[in-house]
């Protein structure tokens, strides 16, 4: 079956001190219909930038996006004009942002903003739009939606605002929903509610979800497949079960053992020594070289390509047929 989304060689550059610096490069992935793909990594690794660039949500003056192809439902959206792109946003690919307080308009009622989501693309008759909005608010689990429809964002709690954001993304019934850290600003009990809601809605609508998060726990719970990013590159892409039972890349292995657990006693956490290299000063070879426990001579000057291992791919010379297993 043809993938819903097929990204080939995506690269995003930012202008820093009059020079173009690559924040994200060599990004390839495919997304199947109905699948949940998570992109996980630490702050600054480029996970949000990857998502935003696909929808061209980055400022043109400071960001430059290039890709061989971004095929969405068989159509290359990387070459579309801005007006054509507007149609893709929302309708084809919807987005849920992390911070609902700054993403919603504070001077418009929740209902008005939701109405807008319906009206922009003219999918609902203006006379019925209010009812459609109220129904959708009910569907995302907001109690007394008729009342909430008339309220402003600041009158809602963080969890409820995030539900409104989800409703806005759903209004267009997109084929793909990109959720950028949708629960990071929420408390755990509310996070549990929102994750449950996302799963339920996905089952119902069959949308594919690209979930961006830094929380390995959320990943284990939600993902079908996982992409691990480090310093602007994919280092590993594996099915969820494989990644947690048999992580391939040294970074993934380190990351998984650096997390404290609620269900077991750990005396000392595993530590990945050092810090992430900065954008402007990326090493020539493997970007994880300085911090890697299994580094080899060639890693220093040579950038490893993505090697395929079963259903996984990994960017590490350990998996090169010549050197590795």
């Amino acid at each position, binding site marked *: 079956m043809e993938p819903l989304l097929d990204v080939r060689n995506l690269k995003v550059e930012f202008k820093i001190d009059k020079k173009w610096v690559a924040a994200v490069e060599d990004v390839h992935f495919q997304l199947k219909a109905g699948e949940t793909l998570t992109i996980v990594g*630490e*702050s600054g690794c480029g996970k949000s930038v990857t998502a935003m660039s696909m929808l061209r949500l980055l400022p043109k003056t400071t960001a430059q996006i290039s890709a061989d192809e971004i095929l969405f439902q068989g159509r290359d959206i990387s070459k579309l004009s801005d007006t054509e792109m507007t149609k893709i946003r929302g309708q084809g690919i919807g987005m849920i942002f992390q911070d609902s307080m700054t993403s919603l308009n504070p001077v418009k009622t929740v209902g008005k903003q939701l109405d807008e989501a319906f009206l922009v693309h003219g999918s609902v008759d203006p006379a019925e739009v209010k009812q459609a909005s109220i129904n959708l608010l009910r569907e995302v689990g907001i*109690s007394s939606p008729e009342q909430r429809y008339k309220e402003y964002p600041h009158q809602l*709690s963080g*969890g*409820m605002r995030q539900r409104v954001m989800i409703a806005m993304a759903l209004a267009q019934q997109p084929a793909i929903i990109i959720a950028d850290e949708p629960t990071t600003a929420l*408390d*755990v*009990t*509310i*996070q*549990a*509610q929102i*994750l*449950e809601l996302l799963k339920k809605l996905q089952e119902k609508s069959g949308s594919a979800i690209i979930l961006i998060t*830094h*929380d*390995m*726990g*959320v*990943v*284990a*719970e939600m993902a079908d497949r996982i992409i691990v990013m480090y310093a602007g590159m994919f280092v590993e892409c594996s099915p*969820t*079960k494989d990644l*947690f*039972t048999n992580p391939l890349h040294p970074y993934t292995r*380190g*990351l*998984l053992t*650096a*997390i*404290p*657990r*609620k*269900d077991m*006693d*750990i005396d*000392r*956490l*595993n*530590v*990945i*020594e050092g*810090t992430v290299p900065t954008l402007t000063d990326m090493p020539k070879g493997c970007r994880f070289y300085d911090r890697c426990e299994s580094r080899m001579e060639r890693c220093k000057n040579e950038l490893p390509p993505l090697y395929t291992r079963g259903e996984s791919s990994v960017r590490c010379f350990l998996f090169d047929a010549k050197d590795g297993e």
Partner: protein
Amino acid sequence: MVSDLNSQKNDIIQVKNLKTFFYGKKKFLQRERPVVKAVNDVSFSIRQGETFGVVGESGCGKSTLGRTVIQLLKPTEGQVLYKGLDLSTLSADQMRDLRKEIQIIFQDPYASLNPKMTVRELIQGPLDVFSNDSRSDKLAKVRKIIAAVGLREADLRKYPHEFSGGQRQRIVIARALILNPEFIFCDEPVSALDVSVRAQVLNLMKDIQADLDLTYMFVSHDLSVVRFICDRVAVMYLGKIVEIADKHALFEEAKHPYTEALLSAIPVPDVNVKRQRILLEGDLPSPYNPPSGCQFHNRCRYATKYCSVAEPALTQVDGEHYVACHRYSAPEKMKTVS
């Protein structure tokens, strides 16, 4: 009283019926000023050398509790005893002297370091205020402490913006340690850090605690981190402690329905773990208008009529395990009273 039952000779901090209220403005036709009972009748004690965790969701009063304990906020009522000394009776001078022994690590290492000061000035600051050491003695102390937290000699001349978040938190920790404190209040010290860096800082905090025989009060919303670093844990909900226990008892046999739900809500980074999630309905109630009786009754799956009428007291259930729930203190009444 719980604090009496629980108190031992080696307690460094004893908190007795502590209350911290915040008052809002009186509105037109309102009889009384609205009040938020951020910390409402809380009692516990912290032992020498242990890490005492306080967990809860945002707005439950955990930071306010910590700040009241170290007297950054004046308590509305109640007592905080530090080594048997009632802190509220101390004069300003006495309190100032005591500050050497009581330090704080804040959450945000970006906001808690003055951007115009070098690392040396930042770490040496407390010494300049409190000690009469010579310049070279001070520098020697600073050098010793930065080695202990894993910073380099060359870092002393740098400014905070030249460091990553994890490095900055090391500077904050070094500054807190320079006066040889005995008790450190840590307010979400690793919440702003990434996973790999968080592990470094958590290990460091454990190491220096063992080396220097420190006592921590560790406030966090992240229960996984709390399990890693704490010895005993208190769970707060709307300004009250609903459960206190040894960490094993709390994580393996949580008694309070809120603790159960809170624990079950945390996603585990493991695909082989079976999930039995207890989903809580609704949001945290407004602290201006908390529910009657047991404050958790409107979200509790065991609640009966009795819970909305009577407030449960913190009761000992097992050894050092205390819980505020009628299921343990008055199970018969829960069934009969209607």
